[in-house]
């Protein structure tokens, strides 16, 4: 009965999922944000702990160094001499709590009533920052995952249940988290603080009436949540002997599933859901290990897909295709200007890029192609998020599907235009399939669902052994012209492939501009503005959203197919959800609701034109690139919750109003008020 053994061992993962989910509930109620960086906070405090203990089993010879997650600062400072496990633990938890307080005070409290996209972007920014800065630090302090011997603070041993042997730690962790949930339940039910927090979740005024300031409530909830994240991640990394900046931060995904099941409210259901997800993952991984699985089943990552299935089920049961009357209209996305002269601008872009492709050197040609591909992902985000208001983070996963599909089909002998066409068609199909449940949720919940979908695609498809390390497809040829990207010597990164990518991008820009200007675009913006009113005006809201999901998957798919021909070989690393977060964030910087925002994202993308302008991919600067863009995102989201472009536009309006006071032509000014 070893699957029971696996399921029970899964309790330890489940306990951490539950603890993180409880933290998500705490922070959501306190500040109306689903904190995607919650796992990253736990990850950092685990590095603090193991850093102080010098990553060695019970070694007090060395250690006492604090890892600093600050760009530009030294990677570590000496804090304590010979810290014991408990002093290191206390320091790590104190730092997690402080980090929570800082994040609340400087980032999420100011964003409490900002548009959901600003809140998502800010928490993505924190996630990206911590995750990537720690990736750099880990290399600097020599804590690469392979060399680590982490100490476990939990009892070792195993418990025998029948023939099953289950680590004692699993029960210890599960017991701890259940105790936490009960304690929190008591705290929230019976204390003034708890009542006030619950009142504040309904309405800020409700909390003021109880006499406790909402700010104090917020900061306390954030400290509680972050401390809990620190404790649980330190304990689990010790048990599992495994810590990694990205993987550990992504513990957030199953935690999100549990929190959604608990309706982001209340600890009981959330805890049960977390434990159940962990146990299911454990049981599933046992089935995975057995050779008798049919060959079409993905052999890796099935366990990671469990949260997705849970999230989809929760959505299908709870969601509705229209928001109800009581639902607050969330604040708007930035203005979406009508593209004025798309053909003119696209022609200029075409000519400029063509000249660049034929005159500049190979590194430049590579940078341009990288930017073009990122531009496709950007366009995909602009359509689905900017025009229709659906925050989707699955663009990279779609690109990856198309890339692997193209490579696989082309290697199996399907000739050039057909391999990518079939792969892109499959991608669009999957995009629509994912859209079917996604049209039932909105705002933060949708963002969470799409992250889960992206991670599931990543784990189920990209990590599958028949795809990893896939070679690049045979050279594309059309009408006898060689469109391949690689060549020897200075001719490498051939302009012919660049031209193919450029022509496709220009066509895509025109198509997106056309859609925005047409009746389809009007319906998209109508749905973005007000779903109920749109339905009352005879617009099929679900179908309208689906059309955007389809167009978005198409654009991401084209980008992905190009990537298949661009990269020397494909790995799942290229399509990690983190990349999608970065592109969405860059679009947000450039203006998520306009085509120029997508192109800006292309220029800013890592390895793209901006990187080349800064001196190319060789410099050390790019190792911090994600971290810097994460930081930038947080700053921008806080200062300009409506996006940079909207912020600038508002500033100009204010300035012209100010100037208008002195001139008698004030009457001709727009009276439009920035909402």
């Amino acid at each position, binding site marked *: 009965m070893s699957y029971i053994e696996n399921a029970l061992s899964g309790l330890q993962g489940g306990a951490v999922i539950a603890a993180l989910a409880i933290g998500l509930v705490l922070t959501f109620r306190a500040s109306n944000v689903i904190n995607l960086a919650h796992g990253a906070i736990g990850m950092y405090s685990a590095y603090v702990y193991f850093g102080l203990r010098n990553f060695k089993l019970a070694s007090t010879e060395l250690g006492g160094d604090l890892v600093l997650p600050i760009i530009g600062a030294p990677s570590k400072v000496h804090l304590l001499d010979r810290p014991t496990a408990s002093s290191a633990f206390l320091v790590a938890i104190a730092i997690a709590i402080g980090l929570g307080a800082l994040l609340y005070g400087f980032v999420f409290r100011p964003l409490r009533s900002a548009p959901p996209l600003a809140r998502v972007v800010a928490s993505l920014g924190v996630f990206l920052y911590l995750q990537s800065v720690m990736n750099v630090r880990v290399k600097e302090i020599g804590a690469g995952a392979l060399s680590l011997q982490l100490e476990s603070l939990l009892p070792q041993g195993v418990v025998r249940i029948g023939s099953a042997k289950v680590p004692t730690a699993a029960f210890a962790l599960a017991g701890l988290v259940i105790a936490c949930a009960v304690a929190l339940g008591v705290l929230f039910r019976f204390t003034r603080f708890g009542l006030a927090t619950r009142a504040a979740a309904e309405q800020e005024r409700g909390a003021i009436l109880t006499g406790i300031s909402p700010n104090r409530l917020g900061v306390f909830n954030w400290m509680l949540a972050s401390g809990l994240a620190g404790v649980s991640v330190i304990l689990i990394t010790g048990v599992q002997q495994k810590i990694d900046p990205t993987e550990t931060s992504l513990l957030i995904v199953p935690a999100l599933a549990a929190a959604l099941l608990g309706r982001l409210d209340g600890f009981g259901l959330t805890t049960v859901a977390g434990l159940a997800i962990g146990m299911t993952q454990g049981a599933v991984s046992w089935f995975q290990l057995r050779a008798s699985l049919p060959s079409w089943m993905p052999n890796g990552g099935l366990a990671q897909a469990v949260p997705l299935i849970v999230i989809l089920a929760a959505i299908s049961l709870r969601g509705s295709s229209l928001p109800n*009357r009581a639902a607050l209209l969330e604040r708007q996305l930035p203005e979406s200007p009508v593209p004025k002269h798309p053909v003119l601008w696209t022609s200029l872009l075409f000519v400029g890029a063509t000249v660049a492709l034929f005159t500049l050197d190979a590194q430049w040609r590579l940078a341009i192609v990288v930017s073009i591909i990122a531009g496709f992902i950007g366009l995909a985000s602009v359509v689905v998020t900017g025009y229709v208001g659906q925050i989707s983070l699955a663009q990279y996963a779609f690109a990856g599907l198309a890339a692997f599909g193209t490579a696989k089909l082309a290697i199996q002998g399907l000739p050039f235009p057909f391999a990518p066409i079939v792969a892109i068609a499959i991608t669009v199909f999957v995009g629509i399939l994912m859209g079917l449940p996604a049209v039932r949720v909105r705002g933060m919940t949708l963002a969470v669902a799409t992250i889960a979908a992206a991670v599931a695609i990543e784990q189920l498809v990209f990590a599958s052994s028949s795809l990893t390390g896939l070679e690049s497809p045979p050279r594309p040829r059309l009408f006898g012209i060689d469109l391949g990207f690689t060549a020897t010597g200075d001719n490498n990164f051939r302009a012919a492939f660049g031209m193919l990518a450029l022509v496709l991008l220009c066509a895509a820009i025109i*198509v997106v501009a056309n859609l925005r200007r047409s009746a389809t675009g*009007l319906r998209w913006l109508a749905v973005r*503005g007000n779903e109920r009113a*749109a339905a009352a*005006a*005879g617009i099929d809201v679900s179908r309208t959203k689906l059309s955007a999901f389809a167009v978005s998957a198409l654009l991401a798919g084209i980008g992905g197919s190009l990537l298949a021909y661009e990269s020397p070989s494909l790995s799942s690393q290229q399509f990690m959800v983190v990349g999608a977060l970065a592109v969405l964030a860059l679009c947000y910087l450039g203006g998520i609701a306009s085509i120029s925002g997508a192109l800006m994202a292309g220029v800013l993308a890592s390895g793209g034109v901006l990187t080349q302008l800064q001196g190319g991919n060789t410099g050390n600067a790019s190792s911090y690139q994600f971290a810097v863009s994460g930081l930038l995102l947080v700053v921008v989201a806080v200062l300009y919750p409506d996006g940079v472009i909207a912020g600038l536009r508002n500033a100009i309006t204010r300035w012209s109003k100010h100037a208008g006071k002195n001139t008698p032509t004030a009457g001709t000014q*727009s009276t439009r008020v920035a909402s």
Partner: protein
Amino acid sequence: MTELLTIRNLGVAYGGLLAVDDVELVIHANEVMGLIGPNGAGKTTTIDAICGFIPHAVGTIALGGQAIQQLAPHERARSGLVRTFQSVELFDDLTVRENLVVAAQAPRWYSLVFDAVRPNRARSFTAVDRAIELTEIAALSTLRPNELSHGQRRIVGVARALAASPALVLLDEPAAGLDPQETERLGALIHRLPSEGIGVLLVDHDMALVLEVCDRITVLDFGRVIASGTPDEIRSNDVVIAAYLGSSSE
């Protein structure tokens, strides 16, 4: 007279509260029906239920003899049942004219592909033009909703409903916040709709307007129909006076 909208046993419960309780309502073609009642009587909820916004509503709703309670809100709108909102709810990202255009046009399955290639292909907008003409908002058509006054926004809301070529418009407090001239123009417009082949269900608190333009009036209180009849009958109905006209001076 043919029955345009036939409602039987309409009910909506929120928890223990019966917001709409066993409502019967028949609206004939070419008729202006008033629906009045104190705040919280269930008028908006009735419109929500008729238009399909309350999935858990019970009862039968037939439009022109066809049962429609299985249809989604947008399908009911396309089959001729078009509403306005008490809180107006225009599309802020669209101009006034575009607000009407999205309501006028149902997309075809090939629209996405056509729009991607030819965004400005010739389309007939007779319904839009007619709605603009009827509501006299031609001067506003290139403005955005947040450039309009409150009264103008309400009229645009009505115009958007008319642009959808309705058989029946359900107007939820269209005169709220209008100045006397605007109210008078609105009254004239509503009066005119039956001759355009459009039936009207009018919810409003402006009794002068309701008594003037309606052919028949139904009175709701606590979700139940307490009276129904011509304006004269309603004016002199003791139950109505007790429940509504007398107690509330709105």
